[in-house]
């Protein structure tokens, strides 16, 4: 244990290297696939409207990315983030209700589960009728797609507490709100962040498909237009941008996760700061051994 404390600095650096190694494998596989794809398109003489070559997609990205795709991305990102925020708020309220009200758990939860079997995209036209041709129906669709797995993950986390900890807090005369905020919530954090990551990717998907119906802007709208005109190359360019956005959002949530749970993730920045501050501590540990 002492050794671990003392060596944390070098261990951190080594793991940064090994993480670079971790990234090399998937990147290599992706690059090989792109090569095969490129070769197949040229050798089999596949038409661009059926399957464009990766180099053509890249060229399209450079040509129409800044002027055409990025402005549309702005609308989609807004819907994604607003819908995500709405989903988080709804999931928070639902989770607490499910946790503390057995009536809600028995009466309403089955209905929410049942509602998940309805394909959300079929509701899009109705929502447009209700809320008009603006971004609100699309934000709602995004939230509907994203809130459910987040709610389930949060409830699972909040209920994963061992009863002994509750007894212990009760023996300290803790109030119910102290038990929630100082015990249940920290215990649930790993599950909650798992749900937040899934919800982040779902929000991107939700926002995009919501733009297939009754939208006049957004990446989903652009994809629908380009598909109709057989501009397959730009469809793939748009998909590339979407993929990168989704990964960025996922990574951002992952970063927040690491920063908020330093007891699980010792390596990243916050823990590094802590270690530099606590150098005396490591030295003390060595002296003790």
């Amino acid at each position, binding site marked *: *244990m002492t050794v*671990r*404390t003392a060596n944390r600095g070098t261990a951190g650096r080594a793991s940064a290297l090994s993480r670079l190694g971790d990234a090399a494998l998937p990147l290599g596989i992706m690059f090989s696939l792109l090569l095969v794809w490129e070769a197949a398109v040229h050798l089999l003489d596949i038409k661009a409207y059926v399957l464009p070559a990766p180099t053509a997609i890249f060229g399209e990205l450079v040509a129409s990315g800044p002027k055409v795709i990025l402005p549309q991305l702005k609308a989609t990102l807004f819907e994604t983030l607003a819908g995500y925020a709405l989903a988080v708020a709804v999931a928070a309220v639902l989770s607490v209700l499910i946790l503390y009200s057995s009536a809600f758990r028995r009466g309403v939860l089955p209905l929410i589960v049942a509602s998940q079997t309805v394909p959300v995209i079929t509701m899009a036209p109705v929502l447009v009728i209700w809320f008009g041709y603006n971004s609100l129906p699309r934000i709602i669709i995004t939230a509907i797609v994203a809130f459910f797995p987040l709610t389930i993950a949060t409830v699972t986390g909040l209920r994963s507490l061992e009863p*002994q*900890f509750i*007894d*212990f*807090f*009760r*023996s*300290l*005369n*803790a*109030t119910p709100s*102290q038990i929630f905020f*100082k*015990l249940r919530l*920290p215990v649930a*954090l790993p599950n909650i962040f798992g749900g937040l990551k899934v919800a982040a990717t779902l929000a991107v998907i939700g926002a995009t498909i919501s733009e297939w119906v009754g939208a006049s802007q957004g990446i989903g709208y652009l994809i629908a237009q380009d598909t109709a005109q057989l501009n397959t190359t730009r469809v793939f360019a748009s998909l590339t941008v979407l993929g990168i956005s989704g990964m960025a959002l996922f990574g951002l949530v992952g970063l927040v996760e690491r920063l908020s*749970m*330093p*007891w699980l993730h010792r390596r990243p920045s916050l823990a590094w700061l*802590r270690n530099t*501050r*606590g150098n*005396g*501590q490591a030295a*003390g*540990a060595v002296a*003790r051994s």
Partner: protein
Amino acid sequence: MESARLQISGLYCGYVTPDRGLVPAVDGIDLSLKSNEFVSIIGPSGCGKSTLFNVIAGLLAPNSGDVALDGRKIVGQPGHVAYMMQRDLLLPWRTVLDNVVLGPELAGRPMAEVRNRALALLRRFGLEGYENSYPSALSGGMRQRAALLRTILCDRSVVLLDEPFGALDALTRATMHEWLLGIQREFRQTMILITHDPDEAVYLSDRVYVATPRPMRFAGVVPVSLPYERTSDVTMTPEFAHHKRQVLSFLRGGKDAPAALH
């Protein structure tokens, strides 16, 4: 006669099963502790000792009987005594320092003062330099000492210890015994310890109560007449062996066991 710090009288506690009705877990327990006394309760596993502690801690309401602290009834009221459970129950997301100040924090006491006191006590508890470490970095003995420091910082006159050293290896355990006695003397705590270990019970206690399995009753009590200031050497003396024999005899249900040495 000096008045009792903790007075438990006629405690009866049972649980209801579908087929057998009310099954007693604790049946007619009387226990009286003076200030600064150390008393052990020894008995086989699952004999209802933890039920007794949950009642004293106010987590569980008994079917009948009373618990009084300094003459005041505390039945069904948590927060009056400090309770150290079998597992250390350190919160993995809090540093050692944040863990040990949990009691005063939940009670809403001014934290700057409490943290300073905790920092000053870390050395006495062998945790110096670990205030900013997470519990996952601590050894088993260190975790138990952190849990005990957290219990002491609750500032309660009576401390309940439910097999705190059960999971430790024998060597660590022996060190912890000597150290715990020092803490009990220094912080003037009235302690009740639950244990399976006759050596631990005799070494630490002023009195050892031997409990029968479910329902829990006291089969006998062994007053320990070892010097107040004791070190582990005392475990080699004939007096220690005699007390241990008495405890074991009660544990085996021997009716011929003497009630007291002198």
